[in-house]
């Protein structure tokens, strides 16, 4: 059983990894979007998510360094062997392995086409909004403050991505078909958003309310988009505890390449 400090750190890493990996995926569109205006839009979202992840990593790093100063080496060992002596946002992002990353599986899936990308963004942003609304009441003030700041960004992400769900769901027969494929592809990764793992249990999150609210909101958008929510999907889980899809290893190989090839350097 982890102590409270460890749980908070793990939870922060989960939030940080999730936003970093989704940012990394969205940034793949930069320079390759379907139209210039939307290339800029998705890149903005990528930047917002990256900013959020940095806030979480920095806070996690601060907590780890503090616990280390208290000679609590046991706490340290669970946050990656290779992270070095002074923990920073970069050592946490660049020097932990695929089994240590705690991001949601949904975020590491390939972008697919534009439809799959904006659908993932919508499903995630809607979840993230409701989650952060709860977290801004959290008794940990720093966590609450980070979430409060992020909520404004997320509100816009929901607006932008839900409009795209409407456009593509109710656009042309081809776009609708592609959205159906995307729903089918992504849906089995939704479940883990609402299942608490060990380090989440003390965070005071009402996941049942979260899931109900989320389903309600998504249902409204899907109905307007003439799409429907799949029933009885078998859910894949494991991202939060470090058991990922095969995609994550490749993402980290690219993301961490420089820090691995040139250790202990300043950039």
């Amino acid at each position, binding site marked *: 059983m982890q102590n409270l400090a460890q749980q908070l750190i793990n939870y922060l890493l989960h939030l940080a990894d999730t936003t970093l990996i989704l940012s990394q995926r969205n940034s793949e569109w930069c320079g390759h979007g379907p*139209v*210039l*205006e939307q290339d*800029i*839009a998705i890149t*903005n979202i990528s930047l917002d998510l990256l900013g959020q992840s940095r806030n979480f990593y920095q806070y996690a790093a601060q907590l780890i360094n503090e616990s280390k100063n208290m000679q609590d080496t046991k706490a340290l060992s669970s946050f990656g062997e290779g992270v070095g002596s002074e923990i920073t946002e970069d050592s946490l992002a660049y020097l932990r392995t695929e089994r240590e990353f705690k991001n949601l599986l949904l975020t590491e899936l390939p972008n697919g086409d534009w439809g799959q990308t904006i659908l993932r963004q919508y499903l995630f942003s809607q979840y993230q909004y409701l989650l952060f609304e709860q977290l801004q009441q959290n008794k940990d003030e720093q966590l609450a403050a980070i979430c409060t700041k992020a909520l404004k960004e997320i509100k816009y992400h929901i607006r*932008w991505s839900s*409009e795209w769900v409407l456009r593509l769901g109710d656009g042309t027969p081809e776009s609708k078909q592609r959205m159906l494929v995307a729903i089918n592809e992504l849906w089995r990764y939704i479940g883990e958003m609402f299942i608490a793992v060990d380090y989440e249990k003390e965070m005071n999150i009402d996941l049942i309310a979260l899931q109900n609210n989320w389903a309600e909101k998504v249902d409204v958008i899907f109905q307007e988009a003439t799409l429907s929510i799949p029933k009885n999907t078998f859910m894949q889980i494991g991202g939060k505890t470090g058991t990922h899809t095969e995609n994550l290893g490749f993402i980290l190989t690219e993301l961490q390449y420089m820090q691995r090839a040139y250790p202990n350097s300043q950039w």
Partner: protein
Amino acid sequence: MKINLTKYYYGDFGGDENVAGNEVKKTNDDASAWPLWEIFVRSKQGLDHKHVGSLHATDAQMAIENARDVYTRRQEGVSIWVIESKHITASNPDEAGELYEPAVDKIYRHPTFYVLPDEVGHM
């Protein structure tokens, strides 16, 4: 008039004589092309909206969102107006003479036309 531009400038890298510009035509029959919108941004409360440029969008809502991402990335605005370019009616520059020149000699419309004694102070 024969123009011989063999010199390539920055932003003008030469190329075929038949490239962009040599056949100006409107081809908006492309089903995937989006209409053009003109964007006006109020840079801060209390100032007029000012024309900043244009962009493409399928409707007014999207035009506003695109404008937010394209023209206010560095906090350049607090309010955005959009209008589809085709709805703008512009005065004809060939008529500039009759439209604006009659105002030129109406100097009595300007405050500096009136000479007042210094004792009046600022008026």
